Structures are given as structure tokens and as C-alpha cells.
């Protein structure tokens, strides 16, 4: 049971950490100053949340690994993040499509976690949800503006959604870890979030004049079990370089 909770906390923490790392790649070269600040601030919220999840994961594991050890000393196969968040930034449309798909799911997930039987999980979710609501307001607004914008912006954002779509199945896929924690009311059944999520997307896509990809299309899975795309090694190589080269280095 402790192992299941550890696994689940890694999934939450790693997902926030990896997306934060991706967003930081934009810093200094966002398409506008306001966008640069938005990406950096979103990344900052996500890394703050990831620290709380990973610290708790380390405590649950009980082997003395703290948030930093977990973040900087694990290889790709030990990472449990969603495949969606490790996908390359691509164009700005790709980054925003990834962010909207993630934010809309993240808010729904955190809502269920605020009711977790585990007080610490509920408290972290309660804190994070206020930040994520703000992320979603921005990403949703931009999807509508790009979709209902110029022909080119519409084409780019539609292509981005079509490309990323196969990574969304994993948001709602459950395995033995979820089942064990669900039975103890620590988490809610993730598959139950799919319908409310699709309903939100249908509204947004309609307003943005975009076409929602087929919800029953074939979906890629594996991130939560440690099977990642080739992006992951490069991402970690950059993120972990300093701690790998100079173990224990501090600012």
C-alpha cells in the first residue's frame, strides 16, 4: 500500500516537474513578453507543487530520499510522468495545446484530490487548485483566440491538438496502483474524469471553431509505468546535468 501511494505521488510530482522543465525552455524566447512571463509563472507554480508531491513521496517511501534526490538522481525509466507533458515544445501552438489539454484535466483531478482520505494529499490539492484554475483560464482563452483567429493560427492549433491527442488517453487510464488507492478513498477513479473533461473540451473547441479529435482513437500509454518516449532522456540530461556532474552541489 505504501508502495502504491509512493508510485501515485511520483506520478503527480513527476508530471508537474517535467512540464515545468518544458515550460522553462521557453524562458527568454517566448513570442511576447507577456507570454514569457505567463510560461515562467506557470512553470514556477508547477515546480512548487511538484516539490510538495515529491517531498511527500520521499517520506512515504522512507528510504531517506528527498525531493532533490528524487528529481535529480532517477533515470527515465524511474520517472512516472504522463507522456503528454514530456512532448517537445514544438511551435507555440503545440505548447499551448499541450498546456490546455493538461490544465483542463489537472483542475478536474485536483478537485477530486481535495476530497482525499489522505489529509496531506487533500491539503496539497487544495493549495494547488487555486493556481491551476488561473492557468486554465489563460490557456483556454488562448485556444479560443488562436482557433477563432487567422487561418494560419487555426491550422497550427488544430494540427497541434491532432498530434498530441494520442497522449490524452493516459490521463484517464487506471492500473493496479489507482485501484488500490481508490479502494482506500485516497484517490478517485480517474476514468470518471473523462466525460466531464470531454464536455469541457467540446465547449471550448466549438467556441474556438476547432474540430475535436476522435475520443475513441487509439491511445498511447506507458508514462505512468516508466515507459517513456525518446524525449525523456534528453530532457533529463539537461535538467539533471549539474547534480550528476557535481553530486550534492548547492547554490
Amino acid at each position, binding site marked *: 500500500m505504501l508502495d502504491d501511494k509512493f508510485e501515485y505521488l511520483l506520478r503527480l510530482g513527476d508530471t508537474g516537474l517535467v512540464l515545468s522543465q518544458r515550460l522553462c525552455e521557453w524562458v527568454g524566447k517566448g513570442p511576447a513578453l507577456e507570454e514569457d512571463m505567463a510560461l515562467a509563472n506557470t512553470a*514556477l507554480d508547477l515546480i512548487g507543487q511538484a516539490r510538495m508531491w515529491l517531498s511527500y513521496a520521499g517520506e512515504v517511501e522512507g528510504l531517506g530520499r528527498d525531493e532533490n534526490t528524487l528529481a535529480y538522481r532517477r533515470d527515465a525509466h524511474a520517472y512516472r510522468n504522463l507522456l503528454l507533458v514530456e512532448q517537445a515544445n514544438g511551435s507555440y501552438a503545440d505548447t499551448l495545446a499541450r498546456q490546455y489539454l493538461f490544465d483542463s484535466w489537472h483542475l478536474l483531478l485536483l478537485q477530486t484530490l481535495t476530497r482525499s482520505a489522505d489529509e496531506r494529499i487533500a491539503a496539497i490539492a487544495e493549495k494547488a487548485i*487555486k493556481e491551476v484554475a*488561473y492557468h486554465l483560464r489563460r490557456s483556454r482563452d488562448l485556444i479560443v483566440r488562436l482557433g477563432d483567429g487567422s487561418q494560419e493560427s487555426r491550422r497550427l492549433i488544430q494540427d497541434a491538438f491532432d498530434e498530441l491527442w494520442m497522449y490524452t488517453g493516459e490521463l484517464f487510464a487506471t492500473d493496479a496502483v489507482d485501484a488500490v488507492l481508490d479502494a482506500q478513498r485516497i484517490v478517485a477513479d480517474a476514468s470518471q474524469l473523462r466525460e466531464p473533461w470531454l464536455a469541457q473540451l467540446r465547449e471550448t473547441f466549438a467556441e474556438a471553431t476547432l474540430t475535436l479529435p476522435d475520443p475513441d482513437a487509439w491511445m498511447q500509454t506507458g508514462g505512468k509505468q516508466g515507459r517513456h518516449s525518446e524525449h525523456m532522456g534528453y530532457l533529463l540530461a539537461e535538467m539533471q546535468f549539474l547534480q550528476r556532474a557535481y553530486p550534492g552541489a548547492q547554490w
Partner: protein
Amino acid sequence: MVTAPVHEQIWAWLGEVEDPEIPVISIVDLGIVRDVRVDDGICTVTITPTYSGCPATEVIARDVVQALERRGLHGVRLETRIAPAWTTDWISDDGKRKLRDYGIAPPLGSAAEQTIRLDQIGRGAPRRRSPLEAPPGLECPHCGSTQVRLTSPFGSTPCKALARCDACLEPFDYFKCH
């Protein structure tokens, strides 16, 4: 022997610890000091951090310990409490006035009421608010005009958005209702 004046004195000392990013207001004004206890000569200060990733949190922790140790208190303990989550509703009226005087428009409205509508955020019109819609009642902290607009939902720190005044043409920070 712990006496009430000691307790009040510690709160007063904490009231002199500045927020590292907005030095005109103290951490007590900001509402992040939630509790001060003195048991058997050990002082425990409970802090509730603002945003999850706010880099000021660690500086504040260090400043609190230093401020109290400088006054002769030793063995100061810091506790971090994340629930209930920090909200701008906890910023004191005095704190809001100091923010305005400093050129930052203080948060408007109640965050507690705002969260009730959380489930509406991902949904479509007509309930949807654009992230660039200025909150009702927003005033320019420089000239007091209400002819203002938000220019960016994110600003120089996690707690602020960027706005500008169409009357005096000055840009300003808005401390988001959170």
C-alpha cells in the same frame, strides 16, 4: 515563565520582518504568519506560504529566525502549514493600504467567494471571464482612475498581474485576488 506581553512582543517583532519581494509590507500584513507559540522557552512560528513555487518562502523562513534570534530568542522553530491554503483575504487592511501607497493595486473581492465558481472556469460563455478582464473596482494606484485595464494575467512575481491606466498612462502591478 511565558507571559502575554512576550507573545505580543514576538508578534510585534515579526511585524517588522519585510516581505522580500514587496518590502513595504510585513509578513504579518501579508497574512502568512498563522500562529506563534512559546512552550518551555521554545518559540514556534507557523507560516503558511503564499504560492506553491514562490521563491520568497525560503528567504522569509530565514528572515524570521534571524529576526527573533537577533532579539535574543534562541531555538526558534518554524512550522509550515499548507492547509487551509493562504489567501489574499488574509492581507490586513493596513497591508492593502501600504500596497496601494507603494504603487501596487491591492486585491479586490473575496477569494473565498471566487473559489465557489471554480468548476465554472473550464466552461464556455457566458460565464467565462477573460483573463484580461479587469476586476470590477480596479483603480490606478497612482491617480485613482478606474479607466484601467489588465495587460497581462501574469507579472513579475506569482502574486501579481500587470495593468495600465488609460488616464495617467502609467503601468502598475495588480496583486491578484487569490
